[in-house]
């Protein structure tokens, strides 16, 4: 019912090949794709380990697969939802911050020496 040793050895060879691939690809200039490749390969490796060494591929492991996926999914939630904050924090101020207002102001206030005029007079026509 479980994997034969030959399968396990084949999996091990595949793992080592993937390792070589990710180590080598890291030295290529792929920009952001470097990370995509590395992490993709890592995911593939982890999948192999989970399916064959940890026997999630064999029948009767449905519940265990659910447990594993739930854990991964929860971790992904932590990263993704915190990520929405970090990814949009800068966006959030700039467009609503009315940069145009800032420009209107600096245009109106002119040179830096001219500080004695309070801000009030800009708003009162």
């Amino acid at each position, binding site marked *: 019912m479980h994997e034969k040793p030959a399968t396990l050895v084949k999996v091990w060879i595949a793992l080592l090949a993937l390792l070589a691939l990710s180590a080598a690809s890291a030295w290529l200039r792929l920009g952001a794709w470097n990370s995509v490749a590395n992490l993709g390969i890592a995911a593939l490796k982890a999948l192999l380990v989970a399916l064959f060494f940890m026997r999630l591929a064999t029948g009767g492991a449905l*519940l265990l697969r659910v447990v594993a996926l*739930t*854990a991964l999914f*929860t971790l992904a*939630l*932590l990263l993704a*939802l*915190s990520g*929405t*904050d*970090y*990814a*949009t*924090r800068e*966006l*959030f101020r700039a467009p*609503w911050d009315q940069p145009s207002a800032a420009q209107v102001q600096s245009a109106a206030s002119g040179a830096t020496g001219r500080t004695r005029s309070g801000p009030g007079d800009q708003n009162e026509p």
Partner: protein
Amino acid sequence: MSASTDTLQASDYLRASYTLRSWLTSTDHKRIALLYLVSITAFFFVGGAAATLIRLELATPQGDLVSHDTYNKLFTAHGVVMVWLFLIPSIPSVLGNFLMPLMIGARDLAFPRLNLASWYIYMAGGIVTLCALAAGGVDTGWTFYTPLSTMFTRTHVVLVLLGVFITGFSSILTGLNFIVTVHTMRAPGMGWFRLPLFVWANYATSIILVLATPVLAMTLLLVAAERFLHVGIFDPALGGDPLLFQHLFWFYSHPAVYIMVLPGMGVVSEIIPCFARKRIFGYRFMAYALLAIASIGFLVWGHHMFVSGQSAYAGMVFSLLSFLVAIPSAIKVFNWSATLYRGWITFSAPMLYALGFVGLFTVGGLTGLFLASLALDVHLTDTYFVVAHFHYIMVGGTVMAYLGAIHFWWPKISGRMYPEMWGRVAAVIIFFGFNLTFFPQYILGYEGMPRRYHTYPPEFQVLHLLSSSGAALLAVGYLLPLGYFAWSMYYGKRAEPNPWRATGLEWQTSSPPPVHNFDRTPVVTQDAYAYRPPGQGEQV
């Protein structure tokens, strides 16, 4: 098995042996539950003592009872003890431990030794925390916000973190044990949709315990590391972000509030059908709602950070999700109410507590919606409105359910009846004392009274006084059960196996149950809550 009610049963779990050692080394889930019961009650009164001092101090606007630092340490101690040492373990560890195996017809939990280990870990964490409090305490609030906790306070942060950290592992192990137990130890015929909702509730709670608590553990380690080594993850001067801590903390602590309320919902779902003599309305929806709360609960933590400097877009996402998590709660409230329809309702003490739960949870939950509404939270956050919100759910809701559960299952646990009259009196006192304590706090919050304030502007005093006087009433209400439960252990009427004529396997065995729970393997042939109207066939 009903004949032997009045004869002493040599084999029941309480009388199996009497030495202290036999208790401290027992792997019987029922005995471990009692170990928890005793320790958790003690911690409740520690937390309650802190609350008493807080309310005394707040009776006047000047800080005339304790100093600033002492006050800050008091509410921190109150929050830490109440949340981690009392409320989170309360229903799961005491009643869950006692009842889960009985309810599914098993002999014990899947890992009995692990269960005992959980208690020891819990005690270790509790003692470390108490030591830290005795050594001078900590003044960061139960939320440990950085950089106050990492760089500025000079109190015993790390020791308290360690205490909470250790306690966390106890929660994790309990959750793990419950999940495996429910999956693998159900009696023949006990399909998933025949499980009592209390089991479902503890199952859903366990999922949260298992997935969220480790995050808290590592987060606390990071705070400790930051304090010792100043690594800079939370320090903007070194490129870190103070809000990163808040994300991590609330990733745990929001799901944790559902750890605190789901078991209470489970209790209420047992009590109401029993005293309405009716099958619970919408069993499947109730079960799914529990799972839905547990899972959507993981998506909403950012609603604690609406004005923290978090991105406004993230705020909008979290707000929407917070409204979604309220839907399954709504389903539950409606279904409990509908269960009463065409019932044969009696009002024993457990039922009074259960109805109290429904009402107060609803009020607390509805005000949660105010807080989830972005624009409203801007004003209401960090005011007493929030304090009132969570006390309504945690004290009005869960503590009520906890007390209701203790009353309901006391005959099973102790083999004795509690004095019914006193039970009802206490329930009523607690209900009114509670509302007097915490309702004024909603108004205070709307008027802008910030929380964690030692001194406050005098115009808030009237409402604070009302609140403090309510707390006195509440204290009486909580001391009463302590007294009459102790009394009933020795002088209470002996309990039959099934004094409430309830369904559920736990009532099929004797009171108190034998060490091995059941003399013969129960085989389940009916759905849960097969209540029939009085006169139309007896239960046992």
